[in-house]
């Protein structure tokens, strides 16, 4: 048995392998070993959602996942959304509704919202609120964030 773990994962569609201490979290590993700093550390306790990533297609708090547990699995981060350097429709909607302030919650918020829309392509406002509940935004932008998600879902009328 070794105190390091060799982790091979599919990261934003590319195969990657890292050798890390078995206690490292996925968040730490993304930021420090794989240089993907879009995923943010805010509380490191699963309370804020700033570190939200996809793990095998489901949104999780990467601060609560040991990277060793991601071996053989697929991870998608904020850097893996959008395509060819262009913003996704969801990201465009965030820009258009003024949903961004300091921006620190935004990568996690966008991944969480993306996951919500994959599960529920035409959500109600209540479903958006529930889906984003616990992704904290201290700048207080929930109203606009929800409007952005609804706009991305095709409710083009929401932002006048």
């Amino acid at each position, binding site marked *: 048995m070794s105190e390091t773990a060799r982790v091979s994962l599919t990261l934003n569609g590319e195969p990657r392998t890292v050798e890390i201490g*078995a206690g490292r979290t996925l968040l730490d590993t993304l930021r420090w070993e794989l240089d993907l700093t879009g995923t943010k550390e805010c509380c490191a306790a699963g309370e804020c959602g700033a570190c*939200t990533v996809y793990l095998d297609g489901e949104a999780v708090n990467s*601060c609560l996942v040991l990277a*060793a547990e991601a071996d053989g699995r697929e991870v998608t981060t904020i850097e893996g959304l959008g395509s060819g350097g262009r913003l996704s429709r969801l990201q465009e909607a965030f820009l258009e509704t003024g949903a961004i302030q300091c921006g620190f919650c935004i990568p996690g918020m966008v991944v969480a919202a993306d996951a*919500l829309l994959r599960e529920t392509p035409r959500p109600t406002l209540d479903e958006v609120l529930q889906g984003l*509940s616990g992704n904290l935004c201290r700048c207080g932008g929930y109203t606009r964030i929800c409007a952005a998600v609804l706009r991305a879902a095709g409710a083009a009328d929401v932002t006048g």
Partner: protein
Amino acid sequence: MRPFSYVPAASLEEAVGVLARHGDEAHLLAGGTSFVLLLQQGLVDPGVVVGLSSVPGLNTIERDGAGQLRIGAMATLGRIEGDPLVRDALPCLSEVVGRVATVRIRNQATIGGNLAHADPAQDPPPILLALDAVVEAIGPSGRRTIPLDSFFVDVFETALAPGEILTAVRVAAPSPAIRFATVKFLPRTVDDFATVTVAVRIDPSPDGRVADLRIALGAVAPVPLRAVAAENAIRGHVPDEALLAGAAELARDAVDPFDDVRGSADYKREMTRVWTLRALRRALAPSERVA
């Protein structure tokens, strides 16, 4: 945190073996939502961590031959929430796990981890107590089942023996006549731990009496517990408001909460009364099942 080695177990037998070899040094890892926090705050300091996510079949949800629902320990709360078998047979459980923390936590946290962690503020234990659930465990001396009623021993302490692994929780599907009500009192934010949780199960009899019932409480004592005196006050009687109010007072007297940011012990005792009464009313409300 000192360095540790991580062993993704290929089978329960391997996991039991590693635990047996390393004793106190070894720690099990289920979903990880609590474990990683404990690790980072230095509240656990293992030499070996045995991962259960690699054990095949440990997250299965199925009906067994006896018609009981068997939920594998590694089934995530999100999976349980949406599982058709659970929704059909135990909608009350689906509701309760759907209220735990956030969708991201539910995607990761497992029912086995939830129970074995024995945090008294967790949501699933009261409804599972009301459902008279049993847990299955495997250890050095083989397999056994433990009624949930005797599973929780103290804060973070269970009846699992050293080296034993919780493998599943088993619940008999209740008959459609049985009524449930569950409440989670969250006065601060929806992502808080509960100030108090209540799960009520009522088995009505055709003559209007309560043939049997269970009232289970969470977050108001070192362990999730049943309000036995309150149950006794109602069992066999035709419920009216005065009876329920009296029972709710007995529930209040049964709890032993601590002061914390969610309120003083006195406040939590009073909230136990209020929410027990409300849960009883909801469970007994005519016709529609109140969520």
